[in-house]
């Protein structure tokens, strides 16, 4: 992967000038490359990783839902996946090999809200054969980022 992408993947808010210095390119050139990556859909979106468990008054519940479905003629899983991932409650949706087909990540205000989504919207779909819900108890790491606080740097401030 290009240096620019590697740096942006870790820090989307880095200033263009700094990014240019790091990659030894001119600012203009870096801007052009980023624009190009955006156009090609390589860079999809810039988002912020928020550790919601640290917000005092804003609680939310996360759940993983395993979904077994019946694939449809000609379109396989894509069409039923689309039916499902278009629901705004579904934050991520993956097709997997193994004992179930689709894995969904859901976020809701509370357990009730997620339960309602599963029983009222998901389960009734005709291609859905069954679901299993897992509620998340604690997030340790997400997208390569460790969310629990690491200890302070333990080095001495000066050594030879």
């Amino acid at each position, binding site marked *: 992967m290009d240096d620019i992408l590697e740096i942006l993947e870790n820090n989307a808010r880095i200033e263009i000038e700094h990014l240019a210095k790091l990659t*030894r390119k001119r600012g203009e050139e870096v801007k052009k490359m980023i624009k190009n990556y955006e156009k090609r859909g390589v860079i999809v979106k810039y988002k912020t990783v928020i550790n919601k468990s640290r917000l005092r008054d804003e609680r939310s519940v996360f759940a993983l839902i395993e979904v077994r479905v019946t694939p449809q003629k000609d379109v396989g899983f894509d069409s039923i996946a689309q039916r499902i991932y278009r629901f705004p409650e579904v934050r991520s949706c993956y097709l997997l090999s193994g004992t179930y087909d689709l894995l969904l990540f859901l976020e809701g205000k509370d357990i009730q809200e997620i339960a309602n989504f599963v029983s009222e919207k998901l389960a009734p779909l005709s291609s859905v054969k069954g679901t299993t819900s897992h509620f998340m108890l604690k997030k340790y790491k997400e997208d390569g980022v460790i969310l629990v606080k690491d200890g302070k740097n333990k080095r001495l*401030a000066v050594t*030879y």
Partner: protein
Amino acid sequence: MVSKRVKKVSHSGIRAFFDLVLGMPEVISLGVGEPDFVTPWRVREKAITSLEEGFTSYTSNKGLKVLREDIAYHLKKKYALRYSPEDEILITTGVSEGLDLALRAILDPKDKVIVVSPHYVAYPALVELNLGEVLFLQTREKEGFKINTKKLEQLLVKYKPKAMILNYPSNPTGITYTENELKKLWRVLSDKEMLIISDEIYEDIFYKESHVCFASLKGAKKKVVLLNGFSKGCAMTGFRIGYACGPKEIIEAMMKIHSFGMLCAPIISQIAASEALKAKKEINLMVKEYKLRRDFIVKELNRIGLHTVMPEGAFYCFSCIEKFKLGDLDFAKALLLQENVAVIPGSAFGISYGGFIRISYANTLENLKEAVVRIERFLKNL
């Protein structure tokens, strides 16, 4: 009570400066001589497992056989160098111990040892503690801090030293040598009756082609003690683990001292070191990160007026402060007190390097960026 030999080794004014830095909690420190990364998880995990499995004993004096074999394999694969794990490799408690052992093994009182300056602080001190005499071979910024072979030749002819300590990539300058430069050096050294102690602890942290091991030069192996370790490349300073490779006779002598003075290196660290030799991917990631930082900091330092030779390895740069008319210690103190940024005065690495400071970029980019802002402000107010 303290011996004359120990009293003679000076600590200089820099100790007090260190204490000053250590007393300031919020400082951005560019004065750290170790990686800012923690040891890769797979290595730490191996150490934890070894404890769980009850590996808490001594090992053979030479070190675990499997680690010696792993090191032999590593050197063969990387440099086509063949050392016998049986009698040409010794596991040490860091390169620090390896260095002390090598000097103790070969030095008689007043034997001379060439130290290339600016140098890692332990070199002259250990030579003196072992009653040897230090011959400083100064390198100059103008020559990219590389050894001038003419000057080296003069020293060799005039003093007939017993040994020379080489270190590349270098602490504190970050410079290193290409294969051709090393061959040129070897041509001057090869016909002399002496030992080359080659401290290659930064071998992994290298930004250009690849590191060339001194012992791998044609004909050099029999006159070289190769010192290496896991502290820097694999971010394992606290494990205290390294190794020495060399001619059988010298390794045997080093082993003798080691068996009485240290017994063996810690078994947990030895097991972890074996794993570290497999952590190529983790090491490469760290090196990539150092390179980004180097590119950033060197360009910035030069821009704000601190002339800096481009380092090709390690994580240091040695910046010139001569034009600011302030001694290195005063410069470092003022920078610390005014801007809360710590650097190491150049004279720590050789008395004639008071016109320099050592900047370590083993720190996050955010910190480096902020440090540059502060140093620039500091220089403007000078």
